[in-house]
Each structure stands twice: as structure tokens, then as C-alpha cells.
């Protein structure tokens, strides 16, 4: 564990009887980081999070949060942690404001920030939770997680049920909070979400973390599909010799290829010809992850 680690998990495993929850999960998340835990449903993301919050207990291994043992110092940890699950379920009979007041009381805090956030997310605090739409209920969840200015936020699929505009606003909030020194741990099965906000990503699959990478590094490995229409015939060999360029095919004046990393050399070479049109496939982290998965498959199978 490094000195600045906000979350440090060592060989965390959880079995439900014979069923695997997670096995041998190791994580180190630094202060100020936005860490994404990415994986398909059932991969073990929620299990990890519920162990960190001491809702369930690891079969083996241990974790420290903000330097404190996740089991013995659980109450003290939760004083400094905001938590938001994907489906925020709470007391339906309370109004949003009553709920926030209750949680603020339990935390020894106040509603100042909650009210600012409610305005920002356009939430009517006077309505009962049970009468709110899923999206509005999730807004209450966002507010209660952030309102006490916790040092660490643990967000489990936080944008489930939010419309795209709200997702954007939420991502903006996440980035602001990280800028002010908070650490965020976000689980998601939605790749673009992780790509937008996270600094580092851990990929979890079938209960194991199979890769932890910086988003920037992942982007460098990202394949971009490029299609260029020229005003003349071009030399295939010239393009094949460009670093990072693969799978070059030429049909008449049309060239298509895949590029890993920067497009700079390819564009400079293309500029020596008359370029009619260029199309680029949006660089998707998904493909990089699928590469990881595929590699994993080929090594295990």
C-alpha cells in the first residue's frame, strides 16, 4: 500500500457457498484519483463495493480505506465516504428533503450543499421519494452521496436511470469533485462513462481484475479505422510503411486502414496527395477492452 492510497484491497475474495463473488482482488487507488471499475453485469463489481462498505464480509483478504481497516474501522470510514448505488432505494414515505435531513443528521452535517445540488439537478425536494420517477430518485441518491463533502465517493453504476443530459451534468460534478481533491471509485458496465471521467480503469471479469490501465494508455492502444478518398491513385507500400498503420487496402482511389495510437504520420503522408474525403471510426475503448478479454480467453482456453 502506498502512503497516499485511499483504497487498498489485498487478495479480497468472496464466496457465497460454492458460488464465486470475487477472487483475489487487489486494488490501490490514490488520493484525488477517479478510478473506474469496469465489467459486465455479474462480474463482481457490487460485491467489491459492498465489501469495502462492510455490508458483506470478505471470505479472505483485507482492505483499508483512508488508511483504516474496512472491518474494524467501518463506522469511521463511512463518516468519510459517500455511497450511491445504481438503484437508489430508500424510505419511500419521506420527502426528499426529509430523507436528506435524516441522513445529514446521522452524519452530523447540514443541508447547505444538498440544496445547491438540488437546484443544479432541478429536483423538487418537497415530493415524497415514493412518488418520484426513477431518474429523480437517483438524483436524491446523488445529492445524499455528495452533500457531506466526503473524502471518498463510492458510486456503483451511478448513472443507471439518468437521461443523457443528467449524465453529462453528473459527469461534470464528478470531475469538479475530483478537482477539489476527492477520490472517486466508480463502477460501470458502460464504457463511454468510464472513458469520460476516469483516470484509471480496472477491468473485472468473472470475479477477477484482469487489467488495470490508465485511460490515456488505453487510448494509445486504441485502434482507429480510417478511410480516405484520394483524387488520384496512391501507393499501398508507402502507407503500409507508416508506423502504427495496419490492414491497408486500396480500391481505386479509396484507401482504408487501421491505426494504433497517433494519426499524425498517416495524415502527413496522405497530405502529399489530393485528399477528397477522410472518415475516421470513433476510437472506442470497447475494442481495447475486447482485446484484453480476447487475450485473456486465448491464454486461458
Amino acid at each position, binding site marked *: 500500500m502506498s502512503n497516499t492510497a485511499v483504497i487498498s484491497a489485498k487478495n479480497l475474495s468472496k464466496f457465497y457457498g460454492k458460488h464465486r463473488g470475487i477472487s483475489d482482488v487487489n486494488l490501490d487507488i490514490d488520493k484525488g484519483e477517479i478510478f473506474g471499475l469496469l465489467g459486465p453485469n455479474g462480474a463482481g463489481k457490487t460485491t467489491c463495493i*459492498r465489501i469495502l*462498505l462492510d*455490508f458483506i464480509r470478505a471470505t479472505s483478504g483485507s482492505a483499508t480505506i483512508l488508511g483504516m481497516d474496512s472491518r474494524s474501522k467501518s463506522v*469511521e470510514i*463511512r463518516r468519510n465516504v459517500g455511497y450511491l*448505488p445504481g438503484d437508489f432505494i*430508500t*424510505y419511500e414515505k419521506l420527502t426528499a428533503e426529509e430523507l436528506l435531513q435524516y441522513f445529514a443528521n446521522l452524519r452530523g452535517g447540514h443541508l447547505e450543499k444538498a440544496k445547491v445540488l438540488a437546484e443544479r439537478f432541478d429536483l423538487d425536494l418537497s415530493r415524497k421519494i415514493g412518488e418520484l420517477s426513477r431518474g429523480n430518485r437517483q438524483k436524491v441518491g446523488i445529492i445524499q452521496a455528495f452533500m457531506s463533502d466526503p473524502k471518498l465517493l463510492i458510486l456503483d453504476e451511478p448513472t443507471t436511470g439518468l437521461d443523457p443530459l443528467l449524465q453529462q451534468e453528473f459527469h461534470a460534478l464528478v470531475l469538479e469533485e475530483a478537482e477539489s481533491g476527492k477520490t472517486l471509485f466508480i463502477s460501470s458496465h458502460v464504457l463511454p462513462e468510464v472513458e469520460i471521467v476516469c483516470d484509471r480503469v480496472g477491468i473485472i471479469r468473472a470475479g477477477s481484475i484482469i487489467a488495470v490501465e490508465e485511460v490515456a494508455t488505453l487510448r494509445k492502444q486504441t485502434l482507429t479505422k480510417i478511410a480516405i478518398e484520394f483524387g488520384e491513385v496512391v501507393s499501398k507500400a508507402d502507407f503500409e510503411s507508416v508506423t502504427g498503420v495496419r490492414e491497408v487496402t486500396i480500391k481505386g482511389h479509396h484507401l482504408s486502414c487501421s491505426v494504433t495510437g497517433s494519426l499524425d504520420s498517416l495524415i502527413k503522408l496522405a497530405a502529399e496527395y489530393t485528399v477528397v474525403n477522410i472518415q475516421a471510426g470513433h476510437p472506442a475503448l470497447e475494442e481495447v477492452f475486447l482485446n484484453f478479454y480476447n487475450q485473456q480467453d486465448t491464454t486461458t482456453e
Partner: protein
Amino acid sequence: MLLNVYLKSLRDSKKSIIYYSIGTMVLGLYVTLFYPTIRDSTGLTDFLEQLPEAMLAFIGDADTYTTAEGFLNAEVFGFMGPMIFGVFAIIAGAGAIAGEEESHSLDQLLANPISRKNVLLQKAAALITGLFLLSISLWIGIIVGARIAGFSLSLTGTLQAIFSLWLLGGTLGLIALAIGASTGKKSLAGGLTAAVGIIGFLLDTFLSVVDALDPFKFISVFYYFNGNDVIINGINPLHSLAMVAILVIAMAIAVWRFESRDLKN
């Protein structure tokens, strides 16, 4: 009312406490207002003296109907009182932790900086407080009814009997709370505790006339509640202590199990 888990729990059961309190007050009033009619009816004593012992165990002997305390003992503390207190306590106890868990609000509550033990104890305290309000209402009903009906009643005897009833409710409620907190299953908690209550009642009331079963009265919580007819003979501190002991053990098990198990999602 949202300052802490204790007050929030009381707030949640506000309606239930009010309705049950009306129930206990009406019970107290009804029985006391009805008493003079029974007392003054001729021939009842003769009739009762002809009945077999087993029958009397259930409906009470002649003394039951000729003294106010005896009548209250049979009509309030024999069946209706324990039933109202028991039902209230078991529903509240079974739902306290297991109910929150089954409705998925427990995770979010425990995401706040509060220990499981603390939540459990505050919820238990709220339950005991609710039962206390039921007790007060019953006491008011009885006192006011006796005043209206114009007969005198042993005040200390009545208070002691209500205290014992409060303890009975607390014992059943905390057993339900303990089973719910240990398993996360509300209906299991309610069902098992209801069984403890009903079997206890049967053992104490009906089977006490069967000599072979007499020793088993010690396993009945009803024996400790009113085995010595508290309103007539005064409270037996050992019996009260036995209920307190059951209650404390239930809480200890609840804290131990609740602290050490996984919460359901």
C-alpha cells in the same frame, strides 16, 4: 423526528402506536365499565361453582367475577391485553431490521456512519417506547373507566400488572427483532415469535390443569408475565427478572448475529 434512528423509528410507527393505544384504552374502558353489570348479576357465582376445573382455568372462577381485580385479571390480562401487546410488539420487532432489509433501505441507512449495533439498539428502544405508550393508554382507560363506573381498584396492583404486560410485550418484540436481525427474514421472525407466544399462552392457560404438563409452565413466557395473577397478588420480582433476562439474551444474540453476518442486497 428525524434526528436519529430511535426517533425515526417512532415516527415510522406513529400511526400504529396511535391505533394500538386507542385499542388498549378502549379495552381498559370497556372492561371496567362492564364490570358492575357482571358483579351485580345474580346466579353467576352459583353457575360457576358447577363448572369443571378445566373450564374455570379458562374463564375464571367465582372470585374472578366478584372482585374488580379478579375481573380485570381475566378480561384484560388474561387474553386481550397480551394479544394486543403481543401483536403490536411482534409486528414492530419483526419489521425493525428484517423489514428494512427486505425493502432494501438498510444498505443506505448503514452507509451512514452508524454501527449495526447502534441501529439495532435504537430500534429496540423505539419498540419498548411504543409499548410504553400502549401501557399508559391502557392504564388511563382502566383508571377512567373505574372512576366512571364508580368502583375502587388497587392502583398499585393495576400498575404492576400493566408493567408486567409491558415486559411481556418487550420480550416478545425483542425476540422477533432478534430473529429478524439474525436472519433478515421478516415473516420467519414474526411466525416464530407468534409461535413462542401462542404456545406459551396455551401452556400457561389450558395445560396448567394437566398435572403432567405443570412443570412445563416454566418454559412459558406467560408464566413469568402473569402466572401469579399480578393485579391480585402483586408482582413477583423473580418473574419480571426472568422476562428481563430473556429480553437481554435476545438482544445479545441479535447484536452478535447482526454484526457478523452479510446483509442482503
